[in-house]
């Protein structure tokens, strides 16, 4: 049963919605599923079943199709993630460089296992696949930032700083941590005209 008390996410965000939908040609409206999911995830720290259904209805596709896309990405969540969403790369390079030990350490320290969020909503712990930064293994991603070449000491330090709600910024020396690619500018509508 739909809970009618919860307002539709995009109900008061019609500008955002039409801005997103306008990026795609008529026949390709379903491609908007990614930015729509992202908008919800950013605002609510998870995408609930209700929101999945809402997005499906907006795009005229089935909720299953939305869930299919959403579940493909480890960046979307069914349950709200904590304030600090710690993602440990556990693919080969990071694994060889010690990410398994790092996971054990964090699991112990935070009393969480993979995929869990603590009851205060402070921390979430999640193993993820390659973050594309193998040269700086092992890599931790906390919310949207990369922390690279993370050793034991630094890991402990990061945990402490998060406990105090003072997560430090990523390091910049040795071309170390960076903030990922420059923030992508939203595509200009005019730039897309020729595409459809």
């Amino acid at each position: 049963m739909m809970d009618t008390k919860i307002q539709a996410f995009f109900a008061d965000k019609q500008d955002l919605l039409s801005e997103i939908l306008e990026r795609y040609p008529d026949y390709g409206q379903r491609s908007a599923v990614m930015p729509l999911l992202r908008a919800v995830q950013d605002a609510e720290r998870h995408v609930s079943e209700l929101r999945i259904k809402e997005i499906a209805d907006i795009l005229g596709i089935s909720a299953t199709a939305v869930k299919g896309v959403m579940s493909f990405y480890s960046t979307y969540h069914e349950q709200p993630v904590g304030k600090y969403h710690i993602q440990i790369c556990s693919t080969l390079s990071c694994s060889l460089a010690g990410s398994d030990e790092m996971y054990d350490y964090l699991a112990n320290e935070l009393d969480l296992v993979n995929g869990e969020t603590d009851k205060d909503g402070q921390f979430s712990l999640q193993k993820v696949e390659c973050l594309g930064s193998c040269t700086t293994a092992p890599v931790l991603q906390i919310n949207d930032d990369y922390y690279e070449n993370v050793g034991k000491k630094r890991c402990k330090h990061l945990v402490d700083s998060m406990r105090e709600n003072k997560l430090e910024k990523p390091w910049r020396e040795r071309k170390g941590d960076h903030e990922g690619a420059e923030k992508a500018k939203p595509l200009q509508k005019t730039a897309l005209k020729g595409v459809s």
Partner: protein
Amino acid sequence: MKVKVNGIELELAPGTSAIDAVFAAGSDVPYFCSHEYMSPVGSCRMCLAKIGAPRKDRATGNWVLDEETGEPQIFWFPNPMATCTTAIMEGMVIETEAEEAVKAQRGMVEMTLINHPLDCPICDKGGACELQDRAYEYGEGISRFEFDKRHQEKHHQLSELITLDRERCIHCKRCIRFFEEVPGDEVLDFIERGGHTYIATVEEGLESNFTGNITDLCPVGALLDRTSRFKGRNWEYEHTITSSLDDASGSAIVLDSRTGRLERIKAELNTQVNKLWIDDSTRFGYEYVNSSERIKTPLIRKGDNLEAASWQEVSEFIADKLAKLAQKEAAIVLRADSTLEEGYAAKNLAKILETGQIDHYPRQLASVIPNNSASLNDLASSDAIFVIGDVSQNVPIVDLRIKDALKGVAPPEMFEHGVPIADLRLKERMIRKKEILTVAAPYNVDLMRHAGQAHIYEANSEEAIFKALTKIANGEDSSVAAMSNEQAEALVKRLNEANNAIIIYDGFSLASPAAAIAARNFANAVGAKEIILGQMANSYGLEAIQVLPSHERYGYAEIMQGSAKALIISELNPANNSQYAQNLKELELLVVHSIFENETTALADVVLPAKSGYEKQGTIVNLEGRLLEVNAAPIDAGQAQDFEFLAASIIAALGKEGKEDLASLAHKAIRKQFGVDSKKLDPEGDLKPLKPRANNKAKLHIQSTNIGNALIVPTMLRLEYIDKNPHLLAERGAAKLTMNSIDADANGLKNAEIVSLDVAGIKRSFSVQIKDSVPAGLWLIPALPEQAIGLLELDRASLKKELEPA
């Protein structure tokens, strides 16, 4: 285009896939994800081959030549290629037996088996499993994978009809693609990714009319039909290929039977009709034939009881009674899915009994034979379709073939090895040309989701709509109910300008002869072909051979109202109607040919056990005018017989046997009428469209009802059997009484509430379904075989809420 496969030179059409080139050369390559009639996606990587092609010099445009041989040099692709997604090129060389190819194939088998459980001995697919076969043929027989296999849910019930074993899934994506590409109901998808990927739906159940097809196309035992699960092994089954009598498409099916029981129905290929697909009613609606409640011997009335007797005894009894009747006093009624042979037998019996009181039912007033008939393959290549009525419930396969047309990809050319394995014209999520489809109906029908234009009109305005459209086609001004002038003009223009326009209509239009004539006139005016959806499997055929009353005053309704003194009726239950039951009691002789006991057998003097559509041998004519073979599976039905046997026994008991038996008379009559040998029909049927008879004038005197507060609507489910089809019943629930929330509120009804209602004499029970897309004031009632589609006046005061079971 010239290609060379394993040393064999071939000439193939451009656009052919490399995998079809391989099969065309008589070679083989293993494959899991490709599937006839679906897009090739290259996801299983099983169909690998070594592929190369010559290259042209950019500057000169000449072939780059091999220095030694002087022939064009072959440039090999650096890796083995998936043949299913590779289109052939001029001079392409494909090697499936090259060392690299063989090694790659072996590697893929090993890879695919890493997470696949080796539970073949308890798997229902065992013995008919593509993975099992391919692993034998192309695998190494060993695995280097020493770790635990992935563990996932073994019994995930996707619906009451289908179970998914997630461990067995090899992620070929056939099932997902099927739903999106064929019926356009995206109800399944991959969830998660990589090694965690599994198949799931987040909708409740699988909302589609075609779900069962995924159990056929799953290359492994991951998706299984719950009606047959854990019953027989594949090698124990007798496979009988036949045409389904479930609806007017005559879809090809395989009956899998064992120890006298029918245990599974699968789709069979008919490239002209159903391709490889069948709807869920056709597939899962068979369980009733195994019911222990079947009548297995002839029964004869002794006082209040019916007692078992032999066919001979009862035939003599019947003959005795009939001999005492005068001309025209006996009546014969067949159900509209009886075979042509049964139809001829009924006619011969009627002739001997000197009566014109013969009919088949359900049948509408107007003819189901179109003037200018379109085939289903015509439909699939149509560029303008106008549907008035409910295709999806009447004949679900027509719904699928319309969806083929929306893709704009004509039916493929056949290879010697059959349907192309990888038709490169098909893509995932193709853009559908919705604009070519206009759907109009008196309520919201499923096909409207796929239509460019959808119109809900007031029930019974079919005649007015066709007439108004015809006027527009003739350049006159007119306005069409439920359409704006622009829409109506655009529709007419589109049909007019199309190369292959098709108009589809059903019982709603046939309920009124005037509407049917208006439909035909409109089709003529815009130069469109027609498809008419008959209510049952052989509606077309029985009309074509005139299993019809000599005068309309002796039709089914009149017979039930007492026009005859004796009645022989096959597979219908008119006594479910209390008014008819009264009249049937007055008969001097009532012979009921039936599979189950019902209100009518309770009144019968003689009850004869009938064969189901899976036990008969004969011929039907589908809605295209295609003669199709019906074959009998070895099912234990006791002394059940078809109507031909019944007629023959009575004729014999009357001592009126002619020189030839009924079977050879029917054989001759079919040849005379249709020009084909019914014993040598093409496996895909012989298309012999007829013209409707012009002598239907008499029917025009009969006024159809044009008022009413309820509409008998088509349903793909066979409601007369649904109680004995437990899986289908569990999935689909009881018959629905559908109405607008205004009506529901006015009657204090809630969704899913069980009610009973007198539907023009027939007491029926329903589960209430509230849908605001239904026009207020109109109640929708799914049809029974005894009630043809159309408008009727309902006594709403007869509505009663059934007590909730405690």
